[in-house]
């Protein structure tokens, strides 16, 4: 894989956005534009996934579901232990940050899809299910970790049942998850003829729209990046190390347990390595008001997301390629 494969337009637009932020340009996309593109992209990825799944063997999807749940529950616990043991981060901030790493970033996933498309690599239909499933469990684990932390801190362990329920309902009626699952279902059921009618809007122009989305994300990441100092060297390193740990788990699961192709392994790795900045932050703000939002937001948007987009994805792909070539288990 040459350096030129990094010259994916989507990633270059991300860099352009960060650059704009760096030179303090007055470039600014309307906030609603971002929301609209996110809606569009989620539906597009869902429809595409649904259509692909309709042609797949659904029995084979079960392992993907289990892997998604394992990532969602396991990764936050690993993160929490690292933050507490190595970083001496206070329990509640540790809980809030951890939750983010069990969840996923649809933006990172789509960039990976663009990357694979750019170099012409195919992938399985199942990772998109994992994308949809992984948003929520991490929030639950975050709640559990926060409850545990509060007990450590000796505070009244009266976990607010009402809020617990509220958050769980939220996690499953969350707009982006609904869009993803909903459009997956629609992609699944509609006939090919019907799908072809909407394909130009949701697939043909998808990669271009993704560029605009990533340009905006670049600006957002750039803004957060400037808060590096307030976050401290340990947390910044954690923001780079944790996706690598996640990636290692992803590579292992994707290759040895799920037995996917190089493209599929790459996507599973990206899911495990990525970190939520949509569903989890508001949930943690509500559930762990004691935690400092600028910690988890800087880590998620300012460190892990750009790391994954610029360095991570190509590396994960290279690793998947290596693994697939070396330890071919079948």
């Amino acid at each position, binding site marked *: 894989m040459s350096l030129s494969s990094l010259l994916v337009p989507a990633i270059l637009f991300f860099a352009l956005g960060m650059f704009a932020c760096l030179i303090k340009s007055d470039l600014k996309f309307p906030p609603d534009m971002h929301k609209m593109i996110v809606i569009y992209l989620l539906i597009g990825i869902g429809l595409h996934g649904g259509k692909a799944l309709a042609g797949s063997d659904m029995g084979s999807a079960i392992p993907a579901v289990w892997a998604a749940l394992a990532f969602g529950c396991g990764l936050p616990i690993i993160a929490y232990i690292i933050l507490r043991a190595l970083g001496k981060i206070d329990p509640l901030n540790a809980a809030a940050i951890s939750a983010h790493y069990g969840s996923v970033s649809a933006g990172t996933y789509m960039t990976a899809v663009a990357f694979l498309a750019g170099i012409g690599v195919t992938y399985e239909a199942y990772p998109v299910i994992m994308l949809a499933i992984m948003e929520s469990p991490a929030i639950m684990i975050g709640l559990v970790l926060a409850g545990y932390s509060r007990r450590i801190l000796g505070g009244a362990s009266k976990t607010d049942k009402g809020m617990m329920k509220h958050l769980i309902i939220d996690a499953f009626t969350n707009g982006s998850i609904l869009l993803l699952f909903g459009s997956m279902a629609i992609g699944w059921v509609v006939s090919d003829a019907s799908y072809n009618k909407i394909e130009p809007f949701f697939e043909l122009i998808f990669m271009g729209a993704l560029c605009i989305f990533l340009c905006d994300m670049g600006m*957002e990441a750039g803004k957060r990046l400037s808060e590096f100092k307030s976050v401290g060297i340990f947390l910044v390193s954690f923001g780079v190390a944790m996706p690598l740990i996640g990636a290692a788990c992803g590579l292992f699961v994707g290759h040895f347990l799920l037995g996917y192709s190089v493209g599929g392994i790459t996507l599973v790795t990206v899911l495990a390595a990525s970190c939520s*900045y949509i569903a989890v*932050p*508001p949930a943690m*703000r509500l559930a762990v*008001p004691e935690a400092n939002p600028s910690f988890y937001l800087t880590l998620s948007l300012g460190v892990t997301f750009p790391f994954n987009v610029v360095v991570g994805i190509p590396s994960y792909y290279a690793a998947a390629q290596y693994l697939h070539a070396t330890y071919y288990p079948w």
Partner: protein
Amino acid sequence: MVLLSEILISMKRIEIVINEESLDDLLELLRGENVRGYTVIKKAGGFGSTGERDPDDYALQQNNVIVVLACEDEQAERVILAIHPKLKGFGGMCIMSDCQWTVGPAVSY
């Protein structure tokens, strides 16, 4: 000045800032007190005991809403007494000041 005093009524102006999700509850409460007029400004930001709230923040969008209402003194008293126990839930502020209402053709206070 004669003219002015004829068209002005002494009233109270109440200004409430809460998070946008609680707006419906607040308006219900106000309607319960027979408030006949209020003005609502959405998408406000702010800072308070629960930290910063910024409607423009990318990942953590949090909107405040401002409700302004002018009403007669007793009405204002009732409103304040009704809102007071709920302020914790709404998480915001409520201030009252004196004002003078310019009488118009329709009464909405």
